C-alpha cells in the first residue's frame, strides 16, 4: 500500500532508441535540457524545446499515458503557481473576484510557468523511465569520476545509490508488514489530524529504523567478506561505451540549445520589460 506511489518514474523496460543510449549521454542531455528550459523566455523557445521533448518521447516508445500519470503528483503545485501568477501580476484585468484581480499579463505569465514545468517534468522523467537504476548509477559514477580529484566521492555516491535502490523495496515491504501487525493490534494510521497521524507513525518508524541499522551492519560485514575495500582498484563488469547514436543525440541537443538561445535573442521575454 505504501509502495504504490513509487511506481511513478520507475524504469519502463521496452526496446527503443532512447533506451539503448549510453546513460552518461542521457544524464548530460537531461542536464543541458534543464538549463536550456530556463534560458528560453518565450513561447517560441518552448515550441523548440517542446518539439525536442515530443520527439524524444516518441522515440522512447513510452506511452503518453505513463508520462501523464507521472505529472499527476505535481498538478496541485502547477495550478497553484499558475494561479499565483494569474492573480498577482499587475496589468489590465480579465475578471475580478472580490479583491482578487486576474490580469492578462498574469494569464500569460501563469501559462508560461505551467508549460515550462510540464515540459521539464516530462523530459526529466524520461531519463528514469528509459534508464535502469544500474545504468543510472554507473553513468553517474563515470561522470563524477573526473571530479574525485577535487574531493567528490564519486564511487561512494554511486555505491550509496545502488544500495539504496536495492533496499528500498525490502524496507517498504517491511514497513508494510509492521504496519499491518500494528493495525491488527488496533493501531490507527489513517484518522485524526496531521499531528495525530504523525504520532501514530512513531511505532512504525522505531522498529523500522532498528531493523534498518541491523541490516546495514550485516550488509557491511557481508561486503567486507566479499573483499570490498572502496573504489580503489575496483573494476566493473559492465563497461560503458559511447556509440554513434549517443553522439547524434548529443549533437541534436546542441542544435536544439542553439535554437532556443536564438529565440531568446530574437523574440525576447514573453512579457516585454517595461510593460508591467
Amino acid at each position, binding site marked *: 500500500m505504501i509502495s504504490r506511489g513509487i511506481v511513478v518514474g520507475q524504469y519502463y523496460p521496452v526496446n527503443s532508441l532512447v533506451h539503448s543510449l549510453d546513460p552518461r549521454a542521457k544524464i548530460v542531455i537531461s542536464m543541458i535540457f534543464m538549463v536550456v528550459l530556463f534560458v528560453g523566455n518565450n513561447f517560441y523557445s518552448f515550441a523548440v524545446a517542446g518539439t525536442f521533448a515530443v520527439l524524444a518521447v516518441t522515440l522512447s516508445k513510452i506511452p503518453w499515458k505513463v508520462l501523464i500519470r507521472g505529472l499527476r503528483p505535481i498538478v496541485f503545485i502547477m495550478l497553484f503557481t499558475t494561479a499565483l501568477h494569474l492573480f498577482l501580476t499587475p496589468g489590465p484585468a480579465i475578471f475580478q473576484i472580490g479583491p482578487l484581480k486576474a490580469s492578462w499579463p498574469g494569464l500569460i505569465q501563469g501559462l508560461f510557468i505551467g508549460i515550462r514545468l510540464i515540459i521539464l517534468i516530462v523530459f526529466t522523467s524520461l531519463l528514469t523511465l528509459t534508464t*535502469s*537504476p*544500474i545504468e543510472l548509477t554507473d553513468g553517474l559514477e563515470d561522470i563524477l569520476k573526473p571530479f574525485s580529484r577535487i574531493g567528490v566521492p564519486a564511487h561512494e555516491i554511486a555505491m550509496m545509490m*545502488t*544500495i539504496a*535502490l*536495492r533496499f528500498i*523495496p*525490502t524496507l517498504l515491504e517491511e514497513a508494510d508488514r509492521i504496519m499491518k501487525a500494528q493495525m491488527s493490534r488496533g493501531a490507527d494510521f489513517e484518522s485524526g489530524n496531521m499531528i495525530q497521524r504523525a504520532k501514530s507513525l512513531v511505532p512504525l518508524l522505531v522498529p523500522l529504523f532498528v531493523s534498518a541499522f*541491523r*541490516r546495514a551492519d*550485516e*550488509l557491511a*560485514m*557481508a*561486503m*567486507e*567478506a*566479499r*573483499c*570490498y*575495500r572502496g573504489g580503489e*582498484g*575496483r*573494476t*566493473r*563488469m*559492465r*563497461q560503458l561505451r559511447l556509440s554513434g547514436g549517443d553522439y547524434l543525440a548529443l549533437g541534436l541537443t546542441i542544435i536544439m540549445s542553439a535554437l532556443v538561445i536564438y529565440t531568446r535573442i530574437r523574440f525576447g521575454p514573453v512579457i516585454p520589460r517595461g510593460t508591467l
Partner: protein
Amino acid sequence: MTPVEKPCGLEAKGVVFKYQVDESEAVMALAGVDLEISQGEFVVILGPNGSGKSTLAKHLNALLLPDEGDVWVFGMNTKAPELTWEIRRSAGMVFQNPDNQLVATVVEEDVAFGPENLGIEPDKIRELVSEALRAVGMEAYKRHSPHHLSGGQKQRVAIAGILAMKPRCIILDEPTAMLDPSGREEVMKTIKQLNQEMGITVIHITHFMDEALYADRVIVMDQGKIAMMGTPKQVFSQWEDISELGLEVPPIGQLSRRLWAAGIDIDPGILTVDELVDELCRLK
C-alpha cells in the same frame, strides 16, 4: 613470533576471542579453540545459540582476529594484514539473512561484486559470473531483481557471489535458518554439489540436525569450546551429551535407537532413511 605461512587447509590453534562490550565488560566468545580442517572436507558445526559458532566462522575469514592463538587459512595467517584479501577470496562466507548480503539490484551484478572488488578484467568477470550462476542453477535469473526471488534462490545467488571469486573454501553461517523446507533443500543440494563436484571445502553451520548427516565430520560447540567432534555416527551416538547441550539426535536416529531398545536387532547408530530401510529389509 608465529610464522606467517603454514602449509595445510584451515587451522585454528588456541584461539581465544572476547567481544569488548564496554570498558569493564567483555564476553568470552571463544575460549581456546583448536581445529584442523583439510582441503575438500565437508564439516558441519552444531551448537546451542551463543556457543561461538558465528565468531569462529568470522575468524576463518579474517573478519575477526584472535585475541590469543592463531588462525591459518590455506597457510596464510589471518593476522598478516597484507594477506587479508587473499584470505577472504579463498575462504568465502555466506550469511544467514539472504536479504542483507545481496548488494546490487540485479542478480548478475551482485554476483560480479566480489570479482569487481578484486580488480579482475571485465571480460573475465563476465565469464566467472556465468560460470558461478550455472553452478548454482540460477543462470535463468541473471537479469532478475533479487528482491523478487525466493529465500532459497537468494541464498543460491549469495553462494554464486562467493563462487565467482574462485574460493577453495566456503563458510556458511546458518544459511538455511530463514528458509522454508523447499528452500533449505535447494540450498543443501547446492552445497553438497560444490563439495563433491568442485572439491570445495565446506564449513556449514546449522541448527538443523539432519543437515549434519551430509558431513564428513561434525563439530559441536559449547560455551566457546569444541565439545564434541567426529563422524555424524560417532557424534550422534553420544546420546546423553547431545541432549545435554539442548540438541536433538535426528529423527531417524531416534527411531533406530528406539527400535533397538525395543529389542529389534538393528544398529542403533543408523541416521538415514535409506540405511534404516536396508537394515529392516535385512531382518526379514
